[in-house]
């Protein structure tokens, strides 16, 4: 398994290289530049300052020269320096990664804790009121726009009930995490519930389940030892793939709740054309996605011993 993990990690290198080229070219082809965006757009720009900034940030150089400078830094683990903040991107991203991971894992926890049991129960009680109700809730959950849901929750829990702070990080307090995590996690919960239900239904019709029942195992044991374990591989695949999307969705939730994460940093940097920060954020998000998928792959062999690497 170690050799497999090592091979997979090595595969990260070409993946990141290809992504870095695509990203660099696309971002640098965008009209507008950071030197222009540095100032208030409503004010008359000072051409002297604009030219000085272009020179200072190296955006007056040809694109290939800029790419090789960027690549040289990347190899050394240096993501560059933010144009507008004039700080190392490593530091900026480093400060923001934990709030994003905290938010994403909280959302993941909520989704797993609610979605999987809900899907499981729905499948076992197929056609019952519980099944219908939970699947209606799941479809609604997937369909709800996060922005709208977040605002509704804010209104209910902050304005009407006054239980939770409407936004902000609040020194990392748990109460500040609840609403953003639920907003981010609801859609994911619904997705996991549906995926679990489908997987369980598929497994329930397998021969080995019939055999297990035939040899006199209790329903609890059948569900726990046979249904659950065989279902988990399918559920893990969905969970792993969708976790990447979850990291991407933090952009909206972080903006709405003034959450100091990678998503809000990414949005700000795109609009301001702060290319080093944009590249840094995207690369780190991709890296998180790759690592999560690797972990999921490795987990397969834990939940299903038949899988070997």
């Amino acid at each position, binding site marked *: 398994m170690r050799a497999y993990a090592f091979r997979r990690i090595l595969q990260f290198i070409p993946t990141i290289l290809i992504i870095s080229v695509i990203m660099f070219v696309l971002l640098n082809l*965008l*009209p*507008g*530049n950071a030197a*222009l*965006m*540095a*100032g*208030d*757009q*409503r*004010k*008359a*720009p*000072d*051409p*002297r*300052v*604009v030219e*000085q*900034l272009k020179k*200072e940030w190296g955006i007056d150089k040809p694109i290939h020269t800029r790419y090789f400078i960027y690549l040289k830094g990347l190899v050394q683990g240096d993501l560059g320096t933010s144009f*507008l*903040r*004039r*700080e190392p991107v490593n530091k*900026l991203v480093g*400060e*923001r990664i934990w*709030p994003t991971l905290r938010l994403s894992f909280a959302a993941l926890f909520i989704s797993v804790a609610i979605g999987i049991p809900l899907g499981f129960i729905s499948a076992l009680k197929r056609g019952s009121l519980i099944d219908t109700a939970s699947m209606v809730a799941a479809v609604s959950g997937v369909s709800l726009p996060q922005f709208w849901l977040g*605002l509704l929750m*804010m*209104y209910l829990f*902050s*304005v009407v009930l*006054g239980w939770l*702070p*409407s*936004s*902000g*990080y609040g*020194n990392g307090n748990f109460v500040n995490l609840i609403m953003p995590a639920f907003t981010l996690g609801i859609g994911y919960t619904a997705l996991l519930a549906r995926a679990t239900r489908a997987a369980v239904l598929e497994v329930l019709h397998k021969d080995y389940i019939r055999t297990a029942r035939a040899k006199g195992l209790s329903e609890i044991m059948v569900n726990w030892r046979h249904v659950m374990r065989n279902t988990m591989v399918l559920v893990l695949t969905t969970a792993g793939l969708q976790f990447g999307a979850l990291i991407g969705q933090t952009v909206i939730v*972080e*903006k*709405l*709740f*003034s*959450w*100091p*994460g990678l998503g*809000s*940093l990414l*949005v*700000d940097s795109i*609009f*301001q*054309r702060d290319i080093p920060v944009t590249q840094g954020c995207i690369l780190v998000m991709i890296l998180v996605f790759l690592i999560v998928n690797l972990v999921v792959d490795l987990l397969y062999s834990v939940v299903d011993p038949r899988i070997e690497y």
Partner: protein
Amino acid sequence: MKNIGTLLLAAVTALLVTAGGASASSGGTFVFCAPYGGDLFSLDMHKTSRTQDYIVGLNINRSLYKWDADQSKPVLALATDVKISADRKVYTFSLRNNVKFHNGRTMTADDVIWSYNRIAQPETSSSAASYIANIEGADAVMTGKTKTISGLKKIDDFTLEMTLKHPVDIGYALCKVEAAIVPREAIEGREAEFSINPVGCGPFKFVKWVRGSEVILEKFDGYFEAGKPYIDKLVYKIMPEGAARDIAFRSGELDANIVGASQYPIYLRDPQIKDNMIEVAEMYTRLIGFNSEFKPFADLRVRKAINHAINAELIIRKLLKNKAVLATGFLPTSSPAYDTAMKGYEYNLTKAKALMKEAGYADGFTFECIATANKSWGVGIVEALIPFLKRINITIKPQQLEGAALGERCRTGKFDAFIWSNESGPDPLETLNRYRSTTPRSAGNYTAYANPKYDKALDMAATAKTPAEKLEWVKKANRILFEDAPFWFFNYNKAIIAYQPWVKGIKPVAIEMMLQDFTNVTIDDSSPRK
């Protein structure tokens, strides 16, 4: 003896009254918002050029002058007096001798000189460079020829002589927070650190910046205005989303909130909020700029016809919910050079049609208008113009761009027309200089407007002997700009701040409503944070 007794009694009474008054309004935490475009970038006022950063930086820093919102003009801040020479080129400032930086050191004339020199250095790339450009010798520093501005002379620790190239009212430029006076020892060798942990001489000192979430400041006990500021702690929540701010304000988490067009009519109907709003016509003029190189727009009659063909008042009422002031020219109602005699282009379709016919465009033409998604001066407004312009056979095609892309197109002249909000203050002369024929597109004259008569009026204003004469020439230039109609003059932003009933002291700041100076703001005991 009796007199001494009476005096003592009066003094004690006065002290008690003052102390009583102070305790009623002093203390507490004020939570405000920083609503523009996401996180702050830098708190080094010389290096940043974002309003979002200035909102916070204004209360950490002080400049030689400050903007007085009540009088709508700059007044002295770090100096007690200024003597101006007869030719209005030499300013001698008597600096306050009790100004302390947050590191405890007293500010002197050396700090003013060092700060302005820093702004002028090319490597600082400061957007404030244009504000000090009028000081004699600043150009030589900006172009890297020398290191110090020759027009700044220290007479003694608290007296500074400033020589200008032209007799302008330098207060307009030096009241900006970008021209803040900062302590050298806090910056040299630690520039990067300074931008995230600043030291100023303002009423509040920096405590913490939670990136992307909030900035916390606390009262600076050594502030030069005795007894001020009144509040103990000032928190800025970074909240770019209007809906989220609205909820935070309604739940009482925000003490004050900038009001958007969609919230304005709702707040006006809300009995708990409607009396706690303050509004001002901000010095930003929303307009459509006509590219003078686009053939039909080269004809003055066409530009005028468009101005006559659109019912701007109706658009303001229906789309902007009255959260704007109808434009009657370029300079806004809050400008010292606002001309009350100017009434704007009347909505008159007959006149518009006649002008189009006269210009040879009776059959009309098609043009594209680039716009952002901004609700008040974006693509939605352009779409609202379609039926109006159709009546004079003009087809306007909106093209939505994102801010950075639109800025690039404007600077390079690659457009037929654009819709935008342009700064129109505070110094009316400086503002109008943007449209001189010598100003290139890259410096903000996007339509490439050129009229020698306009230039001449501005020259006359710049060399006028008295402020009244200067004002008359500025007004004349403003009238010429209006008559030439390089723009469709739409509106001046009506900026509104709604505040909680326990808040006192929010001011109508016409240069930018969010630039609230919290030195005099108080919150009473009904605040949940007191």
